[in-house]
């Protein structure tokens, strides 16, 4: 090594006193072999997609105008006039769909392998928070288009909030910035989408990853891995696992790019507050709530969805209670499977129904 390089290194390490050897040890934590399977990488997928969302989102914000009079026109301009605007918008849209799917799949994987159990209960709860924030990202982002369906989506959703007992009216007014959807609503949704929610997701993601790192990956062994000798049951996080994530990331970006080119994001009619379109539906990831609302009515649906969300939030403790009462019980698997079937059933039902 030349003395010049050593000198530069010395200069830098004096100013950034980072122990590279300690960092190497820290990042080389061995991870169990089962993590090399792709469905065990689903936790990293939403994080990768979040990076795509941040980059494309920042670029879209350069041209988006968050006011009812100009929002639709600015989206139209991004889509049709600005060079590559259609591509960035389509990437942002497809990536949001993927992110929601990946978060649900990650959550299901964690649920069905029991990875939320002691001592990882808090991380499950943080994960539930991340699911909520991801769904809110989807909802607020879609509202920003200010096209007919998205406008009426905001109207229905904010009116739905009014059904929350005691706080409903105040919550709805706070969200809308007034008694009805108007000038302030779009600005509020915009601030949520680009300020409040990104801050929340960054904090929650950091805590989520920190807890994973502190606890280590949940032990799990496939029959094939069980036969391996003791020294071969793990592999290093860096570079091996990082490489798997990088390959998945590149694959995802290629897939997103193809979808953005083949099925670019469209734009419906501009919002018309005087006329509700004949067929109104939310984005597909809210189909189940929409169908449930039609089935059981306003107050019952809001209360029951709230109760289920609360149950899911504290599920690790409920599961521990069940397992204390009935050791070896498979009840949680059955409850989880029923919940997934219900969600899928309601989603498909709404997708197929005209009304």
């Amino acid at each position, binding site marked *: 090594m030349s003395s010049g390089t050593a000198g530069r290194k010395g200069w830098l390490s004096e100013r950034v006193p980072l122990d590279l050897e300690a960092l190497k040890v820290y990042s080389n934590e061995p991870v169990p072999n089962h993590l090399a399977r792709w469905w065990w990488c689903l936790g990293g997928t939403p994080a990768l997609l979040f990076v795509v969302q941040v980059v494309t989102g920042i670029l879209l914000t350069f041209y988006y105008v968050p006011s009812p009079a100009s929002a639709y026109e600015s989206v139209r301009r991004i889509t049709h006039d600005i060079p590559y605007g259609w591509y960035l918008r389509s990437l942002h849209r497809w990536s949001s769909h993927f992110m929601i799917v990946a978060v649900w799949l990650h959550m299901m994987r964690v649920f069905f392998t029991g990875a939320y159990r002691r001592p990882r209960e808090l991380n499950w709860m943080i994960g539930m928070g991340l699911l909520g924030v991801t769904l809110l990202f989807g909802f607020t982002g879609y509202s920003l288009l200010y096209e007919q369906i998205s406008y*009426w989506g905001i*109207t229905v959703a904010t*009116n739905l909030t009014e059904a929350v007992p005691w706080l409903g009216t105040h919550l709805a007014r706070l969200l809308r910035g007034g008694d009805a959807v108007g000038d*302030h609503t779009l600005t509020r949704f915009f601030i949520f989408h680009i300020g409040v929610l990104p801050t929340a997701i960054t904090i929650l993601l950091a805590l989520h990853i920190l807890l994973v790192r502190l606890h280590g990956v949940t032990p799990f062994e496939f029959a094939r891995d069980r036969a391996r000798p003791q020294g071969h049951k793990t592999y290093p996080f860096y570079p091996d696992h990082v490489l798997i994530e990088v390959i998945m990331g590149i694959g995802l970006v290629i897939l997103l790019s193809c979808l953005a080119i083949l099925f670019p994001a469209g734009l419906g009619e501009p919002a018309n*507050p*005087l006329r*509700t379109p004949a067929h109104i539906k939310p984005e597909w990831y809210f189909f189940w709530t929409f169908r449930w609302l*039609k089935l059981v*009515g306003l107050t019952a649906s809001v209360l029951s969805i709230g109760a289920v969300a609360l149950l899911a939030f504290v599920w690790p403790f409920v599961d521990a209670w069940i397992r204390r009462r009935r050791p070896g019980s498979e009840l949680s698997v059955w409850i989880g499977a029923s919940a997934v079937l219900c969600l899928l059933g309601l989603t498909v039902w709404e997708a197929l129904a005209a*009304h």
Partner: protein
Amino acid sequence: MSPNWTATSSLLGASPDEHPPPPRRVFLSRLVSLTTLAALGASALAGARLVLRYLYPRQGLSRRRRIFLAPRSELPPGATRSYTLPGGQSAIVRNTGTAWVALSDVCPHLGCKVRWDEAAGGFLCPCHAGLFSKEGKALRGPPADEGKDLRRYPVETIGDNIFIEIEEHL
């Protein structure tokens, strides 16, 4: 050189090397900690209240106002017309033969706009398929389940003109 924490830790009532601190000192140090925590908590609550007050939209004043709708001749018996009112609301006005009825076109369920549906023979809400009779009575769907009819505007005729009363947010 490692800093000497002894002074600080004895303040907090935890000095392992020395004799246990007198109970009075422990009491006082706990009192100081608790008071500080309480003050911080109160400040946080005050801050949260300030932010909420800032974000919560002002409860605007509203007033009831009578507005001119149309001359009587424009709405003969059996005729129905839709009028856009100030503030972006709409009224569907019908002459039943004995009176004029003005209905709001906002579905009382979740705020979508209803429209006349010839096949269904009533006002249909496109959001959750709620159906209302031509008098505005909820017949089917979520509004009927909740017993919520279309809102009626008070109608008044003065001379040859029809007026309706609306609530205007200032």
